[in-house]
């Protein structure tokens, strides 16, 4: 684990608040007709199963109920980035930052004006 996940919305939480679905690296073939059976088989079954840096879909069931992409290391259990699934654009290009949970929660004191920064950007995409 990861024991602590820094949810971009809720801050640092223990992993028992999350549900883990698995590999996030693959794109769902766009729509019917676009994907061949092979592509679909690849999407549904084949796993890179990386030894090292990987990206997984986690759902913050016990918190904001958002699907997140957690980029972490499968050997050291270090966590590099946690991004909302809705805005995730593939593995973050950032160099492996040491954010093994020792960072304080991303949640600042409450923003009293406007809405969450992370999602208002989404409206335009």
């Amino acid at each position, binding site marked *: *684990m*990861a024991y602590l996940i820094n949810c971009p919305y809720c801050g640092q939480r223990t*992993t028992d608040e999350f549900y*883990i679905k*698995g*590999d996030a690296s693959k794109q769902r073939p766009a729509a019917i007709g676009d994907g061949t059976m092979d592509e679909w088989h690849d999407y549904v*079954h084949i*796993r890179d*199963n990386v030894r090292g840096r990987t990206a997984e879909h986690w759902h913050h069931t016990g918190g904001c109920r958002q699907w997140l992409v957690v980029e972490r290391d499968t050997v050291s*259990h270090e966590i590099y980035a946690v991004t909302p699934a809705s805005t995730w654009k593939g593995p973050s290009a950032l160099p492996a930052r040491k954010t093994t949970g020792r960072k304080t929660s991303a949640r600042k004191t409450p923003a009293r004006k406007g809405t969450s920064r992370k999602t208002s950007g989404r409206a335009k995409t």
Partner: protein
Amino acid sequence: MKYSIFSLARNAWSGHKNWQPAWRSPDPKPEYDVIIVGGGGHGLATAYYLAKVHGITNVAVLEKGYLGSGNIGRNTTIIRSNYLLPGNNPFYEKSLQLWEGLEQDFNFNAMVSQRGVVNLFHSDGQRDAYVRRGNAMRIHGVDAEILDQHALHDMMPFLNFENGRFPIMGGLCQRRGGTVRHDAVAWGFARGADMRGVDVIQHCEVTGIKREKGKVVGVETSKGFIGCKKIGLAAAGNSTTVARMAGLELPIESHVLQAFVTEGIKPWLDNVVTYGVGHFYISQSDKGGLVFGGDIDGYNSYAQRGNLPTVEHVVECGLAMIPSLSRARVLRSWGGIMDMSMDGSPIIDKTHIDNLYLNAGWCYGGFKATPASGWCFAHTIANDAPHELNSAMRLDRFRTGYVMDETAHGAQANLH
């Protein structure tokens, strides 16, 4: 040297100075007929049966760590053959039958102990599912019993029948199920294979698979290149990594499963019992420790260790089933990396690459399968074709849809 009470007495007489190594530590030969990657239970059993059943003895088992450093040496030692699906059930029964004569066969006491395995159920629906499973066993001649509360009470009066949340209604019992001393299985197969001429090579990591004209011809290792005619992959937990060396992509994720042992206590639990509401299974080892386990941590991992939330959850399930566990102290926890396949069932198959064979995807159930897996894999390698027993354990079943989904959770590895 054959092990027996007599050889033990003879050696005691000479101060145990004359024991021979249980296996040789050979340097790799330049080439073998068959190389098995992975010196876990399955790899060693494969080599053993290649030699014993098929007369193929020019075989090397390459193990990157010490013998049994993988899951064979870190599992909760439960054996049973209570499977539902026709592609699994006869295979696991074959395995149980092999266990039953194994120790005499390989001359090593692996403490096969058929203490009985009971799976508890807590609702009508769960009972029906277990009855279906039990009947699937019986239909194949496998022993199975359905125990009601009463029978269960006679067996384990300390179960929490009136649990505040999920009362225990009964259990599916397989008396022939039980436990086996994990390490001894690796050692016994290694010794048995070694005596038949197989080279068991420890601390030899396979780093590449060499192919020529579509065929595999050998492996790169930490001890240099080793040629071979055939390769069998049995690298549980690391299957993706080794298969990728040959360009093979697998429907497998590597996950950590933790296991636990308590301090040794006087006999307290006779049989194996599993909880039906959450994952929890427990038995008592011959040394007196309660060996137990539960669900995987749920995230992909190659780290052989897990985290505390899973530990707590496992223990909560244990207490829900047997409240008097409360004062038992957990001595040690550890983790193993397993292949979780996308339908929860294993793969023993040829691959599309000539002379490359795959044994993978055992999830948390591969210990009980060790003898049959070795037996079938040896058959598949020797004959270049699967045995009927492993004919459903195909690699292409995900593509074709003939999946074997015992837990019925679909294509999500961590749910199986």
